[in-house]
């Protein structure tokens, strides 16, 4: 099949066995690849009610049909699992070079199942799979792990690792790759840790079949050329995503002090310009990327060189603003700590900010921690990150994320647990941005920004009006996830205005048949609805109640800055939800209607809902 390697690799780490399976054409047609493949795999193969850390859960990793092809930024890979953080399907993507390498090794998806008795590194070298003992790496940081494996296996292996947080099943443990790229969200690193998989190393030597190689070359050259000709390519790249920091403050959306406010005094000291002036040593591109947002940095800590990729915007927002770290060196050091321990910087930042606020309010005490902690103090941050990753003392509870921690701690701390569906809210406050608010409320994995980044729509169309906001969120939830299916990064489209039409010429050259974005949007909608149904099957009563933001965003006005006094009250959230469900073809309870599921060909979902009495 053109664009696809044609096979799936299934690895049972318990039995130390593996099997190569032919890629199902119908799967490719209906779900395209990437996130479509991994979420469908979890939906089909992990039984409802399975323990995320038990032997029945699986981890899948899939590039997309354009991954590894001569197309701008075709380096994405998607991971999926039944998430420990949310209890529903969780997925997360990363750039770097891991996804293309899976394709060159001959696979469109890796499936990891079972539980190993002892720590293991999966070494995939084309058709061979080795189960390499990883006892010596267990407990080691992700940087040391990757470095050691590169030395042992060879520099041309692409390696994904987990840190101690993954080993210790921290609900927001990430997967690390290439000394600084992460699949951070929904705790997939913890599921790998439960399976005792310390690392996955892949090397491939194969070619990816395409329908018309001459056309791929010609179209590919043309796409790069078009990127080069975009005005501002040279000016955009130097700061990467960190460049947006001042803007997010100017529009009053920068998470600050656990979202108590949305403007961070002194944000200039942690933004992109400060990075460029003080710590960046090189741009670090993902596979085939013409506009590398990746910045690699070096700083001095206690006389020693510390290296880190980043910080990128989300990390700056969540570790800088939300935990109030005042200097770019602090943010970069905290970033490095999280990466090495294997903590997602978004949830990690949110959890630490939550803990700091609990401490302020006396909900967590000095006696419990054995020390004081304070906002903006890198020592406090390091202490908390360490006890969370190692699950020591209070860290054991915090390691389960803000929702569970708040429910156990009580004192109405759930009000300021900044999460939806159990996944922590990422780096944009939405109390003055209804389209962004409904985007966060309804994102399928929980409060994540990348499904729909709609804040510019709010700014353009009026930040106080609710009109048309849910509709725009649905549109973006179609376009942006479409990139997750094809295996490309969407930032060229967002950053330099690289037109969506450009990709369609490549679809035709690769697939040999005309494929439009519209075709992919249908698959994106199919996936969206399938994930919603799975959540209904998984969690009793799942629906509308799971789509509200934390009370803080509905009841506590922003304290300072440009958005001072703003909030989106519950009635407004209801209006947004009503509009959203209408646009999606869901009922008022937030459940997809039979008609909607039928139109998307999700007949299996209908049967399962009926079998459980969730659909008439």
């Amino acid at each position: 099949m053109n664009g696809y390697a044609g096979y799936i690799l299934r690895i049972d780490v318990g039995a130390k066995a593996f099997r190569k399976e032919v890629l199902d054409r119908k799967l490719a047609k209906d779900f395209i690849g990437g996130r479509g493949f991994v979420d469908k795999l979890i939906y089909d193969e992990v039984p409802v009610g399975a323990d995320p850390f038990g032997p029945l859960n699986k981890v899948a990793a899939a590039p997309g049909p354009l991954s590894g092809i001569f197309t701008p930024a075709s380096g994405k890979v998607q991971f999926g699992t039944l998430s420990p953080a949310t209890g529903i399907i969780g997925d997360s993507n990363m750039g770097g070079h891991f996804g293309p390498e899976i394709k060159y090794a001959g696979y469109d998806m890796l499936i990891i199942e079972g539980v190993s008795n002892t720590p293991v590194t999966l070494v995939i070298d084309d058709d061979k799979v080795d189960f390499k003992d990883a006892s010596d790496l267990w407990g080691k940081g992700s940087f040391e792990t990757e470095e050691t494996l590169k030395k042992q296996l060879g520099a041309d292996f692409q390696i994904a690792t987990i840190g101690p947080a993954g080993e210790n099943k921290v609900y927001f443990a990430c997967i690390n790759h290439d000394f600084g790229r992460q699949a951070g969200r929904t705790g997939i690193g913890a599921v790998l840790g439960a399976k005792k998989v310390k690392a996955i190393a892949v090397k491939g030597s194969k070619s990816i079949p395409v329908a018309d190689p001459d056309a791929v070359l010609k179209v590919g050259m043309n796409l790069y050329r078009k990127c080069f000709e975009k005005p501002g390519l040279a000016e955009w790249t130097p700061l990467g995503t960190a460049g947006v920091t001042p803007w997010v403050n100017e529009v009053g959306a920068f998470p600050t002090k656990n979202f108590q406010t949305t403007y961070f005094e002194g944000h200039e000291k942690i933004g992109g310009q400060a990075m460029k002036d003080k710590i960046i040593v090189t741009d670090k591109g993902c596979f085939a990327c013409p506009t590398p947002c990746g910045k690699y940095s070096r700083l001095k800590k206690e006389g020693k060189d510390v290296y880190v990729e980043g910080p990128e915007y989300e990390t700056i927002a969540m570790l800088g603003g939300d935990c109030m770290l005042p200097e770019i060196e602090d943010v970069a050091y905290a970033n490095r700590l999280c990466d090495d321990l294997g903590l997602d910087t978004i949830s990690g930042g949110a959890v630490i900010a939550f803990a700091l606020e609990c401490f302020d309010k006396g909900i967590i005490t000095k006696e419990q921690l054995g020390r004081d902690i304070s906002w903006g103090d890198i020592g406090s941050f390091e202490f908390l990150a360490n006890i969370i990753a190692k699950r020591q003392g209070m860290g054991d509870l915090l390691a389960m994320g803000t929702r569970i921690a708040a429910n156990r701690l009580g004192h109405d701390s759930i009000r300021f647990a900044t999460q939806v569906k159990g996944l922590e809210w990422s780096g944009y406050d939405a109390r003055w941005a209804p389209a962004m608010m409904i985007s966060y409320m309804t994102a399928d994995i929980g409060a994540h920004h990348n499904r729909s980044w709609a804040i510019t729509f709010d700014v353009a169309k009026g930040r106080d009006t609710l009109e048309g906001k849910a509709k725009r969120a649905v549109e973006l939830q179609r376009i942006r996830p479409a990139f997750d299916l094809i295996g490309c990064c969407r930032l060229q489209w967002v950053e330099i205005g690289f037109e969506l039409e450009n990709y369609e010429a490549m679809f035709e050259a690769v697939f040999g048949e005309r494929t439009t974005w519209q075709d992919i949007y249908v698959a994106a909608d199919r996936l969206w609805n399938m994930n919603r149904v799975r959540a209904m099957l998984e969690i009793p009563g799942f629906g509308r109640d799971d789509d509200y933001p934390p009370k803080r965003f509905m009841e506590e006005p922003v304290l300072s800055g440009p958005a001072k006094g703003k909030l989106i009250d519950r009635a407004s959230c209801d209006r947004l939800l009503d509009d959203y469900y209408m646009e999606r073809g869901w009922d008022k309870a937030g459940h997809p209607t039979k008609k909607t599921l039928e139109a998307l060909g999700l007949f299996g979902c209908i049967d399962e809902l009926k079998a459980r009495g969730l659909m008439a």
Partner: protein
Amino acid sequence: MHLATIDKLCSGCKACQLACSMTRRKEVNPKRSFIRPEGRFPAPGDYIIKYCTQCGECANVCPTGAISKKGDIYDIDEDLCIQCGACVAACPFSVMLLLDGEKAKKCNACGACVAACPRAAVYDSDTSKGGRY
């Protein structure tokens, strides 16, 4: 065309390798290309681009004289190649390619990598131009 590089511009994206393998082999396979950007991480955090400088080391060691200078480049006469691999071992930059069942192949300075490099890290030293400019 003479290839030249500025390592510090490289971001390790491998677009050069994709363009090379597509152009020379009509295959999507960066492993089968004649240029190698190599990252050095976690420290010092930089890239080195290994590419064919047309230095002629391969020609010096070829036992059958299959490799000779034609104009600006060293070229392989496939009829004379006995697939011994001496050129691969001798190449200072690891950019010779000898695949099973094939004759040895090398860079002919076609410039595909130059055209695709988003950073002009590999460029044409005759014109001092990269693909981006």
